[in-house]
């Protein structure tokens, strides 16, 4: 069983690496969808199937569709300009989490994983964590308004140009 978990972990890290480093935005979006799928599998293994389903439908479905929509509007572009931060310095900064892992490994602090499934998520969400729901509603309204303000003018201009032709 551990081998399966290890394979999922390797596939997850590989797809995340490819999503960030592959050439072509469409390929990056597809690798990101694969990363979402593998994250959802890991969440399911960790005992939260509800969140895994939401991650799968939102992360691998909705976000990928949005990416493809955005790429179809603005297209792909090769950018040639100087880095903000030298790649070596960025690599050093990004390896800090692995240094922490090595420290945990050496000092023998092993996290004890308890694979206990949650009782009833609905009770927690609707009774104990109502603030989260209000926050989510506010975020969704903000997102819809943001999209309307940002995309609507450009789409309207596009339609006007097409009608003019």
């Amino acid at each position, binding site marked *: 069983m551990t081998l399966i978990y290890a394979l999922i972990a390797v596939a997850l890290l590989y797809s995340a690496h490819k999503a960030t480093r592959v050439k072509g935005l469409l390929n990056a979006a597809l690798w990101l969808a694969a990363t979402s799928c593998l994250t959802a599998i890991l969440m399911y293994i*960790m005992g939260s199937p509800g969140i895994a389903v939401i991650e799968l439908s939102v992360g691998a479905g909705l976000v990928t569709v949005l990416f493809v929509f955005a790429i179809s509007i603005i297209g792909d572009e090769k950018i040639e*300009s100087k880095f903000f931060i030298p790649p070596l310095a*960025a690599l050093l900064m990004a390896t800090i989490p692995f240094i922490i892992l090595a420290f945990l490994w050496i000092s023998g602090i092993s996290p004890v994983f308890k694979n206990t499934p949650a009782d009833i998520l609905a009770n927690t969400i609707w009774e104990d964590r109502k603030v989260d729901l209000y926050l989510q509603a506010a975020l969704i309204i903000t997102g819809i308004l943001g999209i309307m303000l940002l995309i609507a003018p450009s789409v309207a201009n596009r339609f006007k140009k097409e009608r003019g032709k």
Partner: protein
Amino acid sequence: MSYIIVVCILGLLGIGFYCLLITRNLLKLVVALQVLVKGAMLAVLFAGCLVDNMEVAQSMALTIIVADTIVAVIGLAMAIQVRQITNTSNIRSISTLRK
């Protein structure tokens, strides 16, 4: 099992952070942010497993998914607008939007 999940969390955080530092394409920035947030979300769920309080962890993960999606949506919309105004997706072009 625990170490495999810890490696996944740290790997996703490292990859996302590295890409966030070196990338210059606005859409790639959103991709890097998504990878970074996936690592953070797994970390929240893992913490819930460790303290045996999965309900709260799942509730927080749900909020993270919603917030992450909204951030992606607004980021993509901004990328579209920046590209249409400046004709490039380079992150440096944002500073030229100021009139």
